[in-house]
């Protein structure tokens, strides 16, 4: 097969752009692609053109739009990128994470003023190592999708150059309800800390702002610290994942800045009035695992699902039940303070009952149940996953103004 014609054609294109391209060298490349690798000539031609364009750092011949704008890839703001695009961007490496596989040279998060995106530099790409906190111009990278999240791929054709200056980059937090899969930043309050469900987990819980709440998790990693409950933080470049159909924030790799000012949090003001129609087993006095950060409820045999037998448990009070207003039944969970206030039985009293009564902990359950079941109460707290976590709970009193209102209602409509 004769490659000289194709080689000359390619060479002419580059000469036109003012670059000297050796037709012999081009022919050699084409020959190699076609004969050794079985590439079709047209495809070989295209790849040689691409390669040379990159070599001479000129826009791809013919690919440049009429407006003469950029190269084959468009310069884009991160927020505007969609999977499938070739892009050029300028951004700051705001986080680096350990490569998940040997095929990955470097991975992390790159941000500009419009947003942030995860990037992966393939080991084969031989890309220069980027430093956290520095600005780079990345040309001809590919945006694709990994696990439903847009991802920037740096391959052998991507050109990376460091931008010397440190530009100002002030990320803007978004409202929790506007978070979506990818990378996100919020300003939120730690409204809850949950029992760790995995031994590799450092902390999990709930972050809230005015618009909603989202689960967060921090995995154990050197240098990672727990967030303070009720602390307010600005969190940037956190990974927004989906788990069981719900979004959650992975804070490993995120930039976390404690804030001074308190912020209002939604969902904290749910209030329901109704009758307590059920007190579930597991209410009353319970034993909790004493292992730091565990706090799980123990079985009767003092067995923790993770830390096994724990004879030095700690006592706690809780009530799990259903509050029914006649049209809807709300699952409620009362923690110790609320239980003490509603039942009039303190933790110390409950412990005394449990330890000195033949029925033990069951006696506490019975006494508490008899004190609250079937009563009208008003519970206030935070609603999460259709369960009301009660901060305050009080028994409803007979209200004679309500009586009058109903007498009028009954009389008026008759």
């Amino acid at each position, binding site marked *: 097969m004769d490659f000289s014609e194709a080689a000359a054609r390619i060479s002419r294109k580059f000469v036109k752009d003012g670059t000297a391209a050796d037709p012999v060298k081009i022919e050699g490349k084409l020959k190699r692609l076609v004969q050794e690798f079985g590439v079709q000539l047209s495809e070989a031609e295209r790849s040689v053109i691409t390669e040379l364009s990159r070599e001479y750092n000129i826009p791809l011949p013919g690919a440049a739009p009429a407006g003469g704008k950029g190269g084959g890839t468009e310069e884009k703001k991160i927020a505007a990128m969609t999977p499938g695009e070739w892009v050029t961007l300028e951004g700051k490496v705001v986080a680096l994470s350990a490569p998940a596989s040997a095929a990955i040279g470097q991975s992390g998060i790159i941000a500009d003023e419009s947003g942030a995106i995860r990037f992966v530099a393939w080991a084969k790409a031989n890309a220069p190592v980027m430093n956290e906190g520095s600005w780079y111009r990345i040309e001809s990278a590919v945006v694709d999708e990994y696990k439903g999240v847009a991802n920037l791929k740096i391959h052998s054709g991507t050109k990376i150059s460091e931008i010397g200056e440190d530009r100002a980059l002030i990320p803007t937090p978004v409202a929790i309800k506007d978070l979506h899969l990818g990378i996100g930043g919020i300003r939120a309050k730690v409204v809850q800390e949950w029992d760790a469900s995995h031994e590799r987990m450092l902390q999990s819980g709930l972050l809230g702002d005015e618009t909603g709440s989202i689960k967060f998790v921090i995995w154990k990693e050197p240098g990672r610290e727990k967030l303070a409950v009720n602390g307010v933080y600005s969190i940037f470049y956190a990974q927004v994942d989906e788990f069981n159909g719900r979004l959650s924030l992975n804070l490993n790799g995120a930039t976390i800045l404690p804030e001074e000012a308190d912020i209002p949090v939604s969902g904290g003001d749910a209030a329901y009035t109704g*009758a307590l129609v059920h007190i579930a087993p597991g209410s009353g006095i319970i034993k909790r695992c004493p292992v730091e950060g565990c706090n799980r409820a123990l079985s009767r045999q003092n067995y923790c699902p993770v830390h096994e037998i724990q004879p030095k448990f700690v006592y706690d009070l809780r009530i799990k039940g259903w509050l029914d207003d006649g049209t809807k039944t709300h699952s409620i969970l009362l923690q110790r303070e609320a239980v003490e206030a509603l039942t009039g039985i303190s933790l110390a009293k409950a412990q005394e009952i449990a330890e000195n009564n033949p029925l033990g902990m069951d006696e506490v359950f019975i006494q508490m149940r008899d004190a609250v079941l079937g009563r009208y109460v008003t519970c206030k707290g935070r609603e999460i996953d259709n369960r009301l976590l009660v901060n305050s709970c009080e028994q409803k009193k007979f209200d004679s103004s309500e009586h009058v209102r109903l007498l009028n209602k009954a009389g008026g409509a008759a």
Partner: protein
Amino acid sequence: MSTPSRDMPRREGSFEREPARRVFAGELRECRYQFKDGEDEKSPTFVLLPTGERCNRIFLVGTLTEKTRQGEQNMFYRGRVVDPTGTFFIMAGSYQPEAMQQLARIETPAFVAVVGKPSLYQKPDGAVMVSVRVESITTVDKDTRDIWVLDTAERTLDRIAAAKAGTTKDAATAKEQYPTVDTAVFHRMASDALAQIKM
């Protein structure tokens, strides 16, 4: 970011507990229609109230005036709970051991709060009776009873209003099943119940 903004997926409550309806004894007594919602063996059974609402579970507060133990092998308790409009017939058997123990301990008379499931029975003489299978029963104070009367009166009035509007499916079924029932009766009942409470 580049992924299109999507609605925040929220897991709906996988389980919705049937709410406990508030109904006076005088209305519950008039129930004649019972149905299953769904083909499944485990589908809940509902009793249709004449005011046009289905109930699988009810919450009632009244005075336990009488309780009797019955049966030898399959022991169970029966009781009568009185409200301003009539009497609820309650029962707790060996399938409700906790409720049975609770009921066994209560000395009559006492104000009690009952959560239970209503169902229709045909007596040997052909008469239909509504009985409430107790899930839980606790003694309460008079305040709770009075709050319940207000609560139940309001719910009853709201049901009557909804039945008049006739917008719900249950309201339409109630018209078919209880053609002779005049909801004005229940309105008067609610009104009388309210009047019985001391100002």
